[in-house]
């Protein structure tokens, strides 16, 4: 059998830390979405309004 079987399962403190890390990661990913979106708009600038429709 695996030696890790004797170890304790995740404690509530472990789970709380994991939740907070996941939340931080989610915020970073959301921030990246905003970053890329706004930068695209900034880089397009006024040119987007001057295109042929």
């Amino acid at each position, binding site marked *: 059998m695996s030696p890790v079987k004797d170890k304790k399962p995740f404690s509530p403190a472990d789970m709380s830390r994991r939740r907070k*890390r996941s939340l931080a990661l989610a915020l970073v990913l959301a921030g990246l979405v905003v970053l890329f979106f706004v930068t695209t708009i900034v880089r397009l600038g006024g040119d987007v309004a001057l295109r042929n429709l």
Partner: protein
Amino acid sequence: MSDIQADISDTSAAALGGEGTVKDYWTLLKPRVMSLVIFTALAGLVAASSDIHPWLALVALLAIAVGAGASGALNMWYDADIDALMARTANRPVPRGAILPGEALGFGLALAAGSVLVLGLLVNIVAAALLAFTIFFYAVIYTMWLKRSTPQNIVIGGAAGAFPPMIGWAAATGSVTLASIALFLIIFMWTPPHFWALALFREGDYARAGVPMLPNVAGADETRRQILLYSLILVPITFLPSLLGTTGLVYTIVTALLGAAFLWHAFDVFRLRAGEPARRACRRLFGFSILYLFAIFAAIIAERILGIVPFTQVIG
């Protein structure tokens, strides 16, 4: 439930890693170093006087900051063994066991790749290439090679800390110029006196960890001589931005006054060689050197904000 599932459910957090808090990961980024990097990169960005969009300038600063943080995480991954032996660093997340070495490595590599990609895709390739080189230089050339092998470690390794204003300049203009190299040189020549002043009053720490800092290898007196020598080279170099037409009267006056004070502190370290007065002189130089660098780059930013006209270019 299969054996594999049972194993996973029984596995402790310690066995898998995952003990670290968000704060521990934040600590891996060396936030204090990161703040100085952001500040000097901002100075490079504004000194370049380009018409970069403020949002793109913000993106560039963010990417440079994350790149600096990645370097810090990679440094803490590799140096965990010696960090555990020094009072100043023993409480870092990896030697403390809060974050596993593999987690620190993965975190550092992911941030390094992410920051370079973001800078390259959203700002420009020259700045991204410089950032990639800086991370490589700090993590591989300095941390893995020079730090443990030569007392000149921080002289050459100091280049990594000197690149941020050049990256800021490149982010704004897409180029490397003499003026941006001058900003690099200021930090490059500032690093040895700054770190050797620290090494003089933390000599025991570095010796315990087997890091060949100049005081343990060449002795305290030679270190004092080198501090004075580098300070004498540093102060004239701080006038280069004015000679190259990047800065004006305010910067020049501030730099002259601060330079005189820096030399005075360096001479004090050279003169006082024993006991508590010598130790205090080293601490004073170390503390002042941080203020010195901050004030020099603050003067560059202040001149741009206040609209002070730079001197006409004299050389270059």
